[in-house]
């Protein structure tokens, strides 16, 4: 049967089992939106207030489920607004398909109204992208886009569809399979390499498992646990891997790196073998590369060959899927007991656990500690970027994978709230909490309308320190407390500069009133003793709630490995 491009688009989404699409309409995507109206009972369309919000929602949907997140926006500014969300997903290998309208094929290149070279702009921030120039190619392209997004090292794929293609008519046939001759992702690891890796593991005395987001993408948490226990090896989980290993497990060393766990960082510096799985030796993890893990041999298991030997020399690379390779590896590794090594680590852990001052002041870490206790680590916590993110990573202890969502690679402020909306839509029965700073939350605050109008019950926890806290921290430690452009409550200077200074009486914005103006619930918390009861009560409210915690302004994220320092030059306390 003949169908228009717009119908083919909608039918193809059904074939891909897409349930939700996030986005905003516009001139060059109207034929598709006309079809979205027809398919509204089959595909839920969530109208956002900004295209970046739509992109992050699709991302949050994808991270919390493992399914492909989908968004749909118009040409030109719609597409350019989306690019930050694409770059965010690309850095963290999140499967997404973004559709953009485009000016008619006859107008492309003419500087037409709302024209942008979308495939050109998004090429470096997507896994792949397409410009559809013939309606006959549309169904095949959409199928390929989903296939590329969710296979191999996952990532965002963009499909740019000119408006005349949306109107053009052709026979609809959704291809059964995808066969791209130039794209054949490898899942099974090389048997010889796996055996070599096992030998190295069997002979190691002080091994360390260093795992990243790849464990979560590959759904390999269970296999990881089996491996860690069998070879009796501690596990350090990167920001993107938080939740893939049970909290409070004696082998859990938590997050490594710049604001990572002291014991994890010392384990790197003292281990004789690193077993890296689905992690990419990011500079925030390794610290000064030339001083990184000086005694260690390295096994690197990763689905993306470009991640291997990019930053560090790898002794045994194994390319493939984490789950499949760990399963194979389990056949060849011997049961081990690394008691001595673990004793050493537990001493480090005892001397310097994550900690903060337990006084009467309302400290941000305390808020997250409480969230972790009250939700028992069963809530999906999404973070913004900065101090709030690092504190959340240190103190929230999720029980399951896909329960800690954060923009790791790109570090996108404004990610958390829309991603939380996406996660809540995908997991309506779960508690979803966005942990934010007063800076980050303002970068996509407009999505309050999306949340409230769609009855999306997410909880926003603002750790309000009246400044851009992480930048302020760097300026305090490395720029002689010359606080430049970090104060969010006054036009200049910073509250933290002058201990006697008070916050201005008028809060700009007043997050409680702001919440109310959107029809959400706003609560301000200024005392430590109110934290627990407020959280418990807020979680019972079936509405979008903003909790504005007025926290200590000059609180720092510790420990800290200064940029360019080795992991064992970690600062655990400040004078």
């Amino acid at each position: 049967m003949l169908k228009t491009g717009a119908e083919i688009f909608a039918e193809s989404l059904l074939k891909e089992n897409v349930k939700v699409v996030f986005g905003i309409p516009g001139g060059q995507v109207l034929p598709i939106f006309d079809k979205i109206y027809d398919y509204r009972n089959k595909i839920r369309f969530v109208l956002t207030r900004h295209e970046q919000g739509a992109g992050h929602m699709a991302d949050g949907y994808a991270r919390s489920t493992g399914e492909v997140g989908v968004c749909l926006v118009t040409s030109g500014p719609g597409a350019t607004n989306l690019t930050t969300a694409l770059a965010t997903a690309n850095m963290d290998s999140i499967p997404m398909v973004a559709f953009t309208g485009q000016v008619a094929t006859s107008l492309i290149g003419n500087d037409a109204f709302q024209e942008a070279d979308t495939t050109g702009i998004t090429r470096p921030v997507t896994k792949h992208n397409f410009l559809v120039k013939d309606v006959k190619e549309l169904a095949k392209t959409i199928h390929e886009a989903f296939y590329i997004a969710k296979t191999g090292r996952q990532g965002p794929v963009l499909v740019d569809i000119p408006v005349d293609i949306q109107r053009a008519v052709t026979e609809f046939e959704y291809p059964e399979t995808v066969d791209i001759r130039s794209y054949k992702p490898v899942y099974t690891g090389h048997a010889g390499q796996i055996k070599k890796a096992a030998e190295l593991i069997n002979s190691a005395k002080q091994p360390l498992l260093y795992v990243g987001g790849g464990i979560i993408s590959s759904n390999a948490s269970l296999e990881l646990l089996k491996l860690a226990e069998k070879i009796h090896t501690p596990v350090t989980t990167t920001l993107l891997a938080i939740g893939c290993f049970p909290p409070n497990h004696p082998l859990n060393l938590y997050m490594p790196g710049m604001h990572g766990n002291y014991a994890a960082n010392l384990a790197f510096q003292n281990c004789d073998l690193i077993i890296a799985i689905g992690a990419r030796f990011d500079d925030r993890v390794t610290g000064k590369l030339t001083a990184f893990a000086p005694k260690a041999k390295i096994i690197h298991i990763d689905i993306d060959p470009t991640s291997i030997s990019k930053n560090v020399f790898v002794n045994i690379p194994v390319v493939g899927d984490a789950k499949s390779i760990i399963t194979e590896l389990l056949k060849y590794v011997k049961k081990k007991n690394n008691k001595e090594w673990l004793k050493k680590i537990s001493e480090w852990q005892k001397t310097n656990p994550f900690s903060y001052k337990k006084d009467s002041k309302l400290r941000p870490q305390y808020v997250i500690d409480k969230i972790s206790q009250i939700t028992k680590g069963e809530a999906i916590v999404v973070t913004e970027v900065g101090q709030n993110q690092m504190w959340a990573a240190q103190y929230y202890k999720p029980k399951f994978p896909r329960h800690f969502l954060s923009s790791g690679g790109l570090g996108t402020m404004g990610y958390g709230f829309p991603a939380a909306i996406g996660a809540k839509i995908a997991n309506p029965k779960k508690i979803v909490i966005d942990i934010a700073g007063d800076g980050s939350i303002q970068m996509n605050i407009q999505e309050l309308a999306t949340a409230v109008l769609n009855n999306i019950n997410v909880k926003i926890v603002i750790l309000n320190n009246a400044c851009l806290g992480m930048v302020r921290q760097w300026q305090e430690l490395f720029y002689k407390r010359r606080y430049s452009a970090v104060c969010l409550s006054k036009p200049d200077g910073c509250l933290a500069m002058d201990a006697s200074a008070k916050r201005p009486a008028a809060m700009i914005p007043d997050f409680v009133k702001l919440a109310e103006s959107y029809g959400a619930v706003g609560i301000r918390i200024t005392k430590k003793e109110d934290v627990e009861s407020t959280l418990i009560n807020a979680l019972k409210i079936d509405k979008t709630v903003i909790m504005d915690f007025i926290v200590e302004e000059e609180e720092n994220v510790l420990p800290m490995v200064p940029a360019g320092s080795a992991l064992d030059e970690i600062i655990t306390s400040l004078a």
Partner: protein
Amino acid sequence: MKHTISVLVENKSGVLARIATLFAARGYNIDSLAVGETDDPTISRMTIVVNGDEKILEQVEKQLNKLIDVIKLNDFLNIEHIERDLVLIKVKADKNTRNEILQIVDIFRAKIIDVSVNTVIIEMTGDEDKIQAILNMLKPFGIKEVARTGIIAIARGA
């Protein structure tokens, strides 16, 4: 170390941009790049000459392979292969110097493909060294313009 990499890619619009973007974004330097259709019109061959140490080259090749439109990649460093570059050289030549230039052209088995009162255009193919050699020889006469295709390469034998 100079590497000549031969890359078979889908013959689609945007593929050249993808490769150029990759090199620019990751800070790799391209010495030369030549593109043309193969016997299969859906496939193009790109011959890229890159300079860098082993580690950079390993990344360049992995990153190229990662591009969805790249079908196959060959680094010719340790493979017996033929390299050719075609150069067109416009040289000042008047009745006093023309003969001397002709002799140089003969020695290099190059060709004169155009003559004017004041200039000749020389066409020559060869590898990098040979082209550099003729350019050096012609320099004293006054080289007005040079156009080169960039290196193309193909493996010997099977």
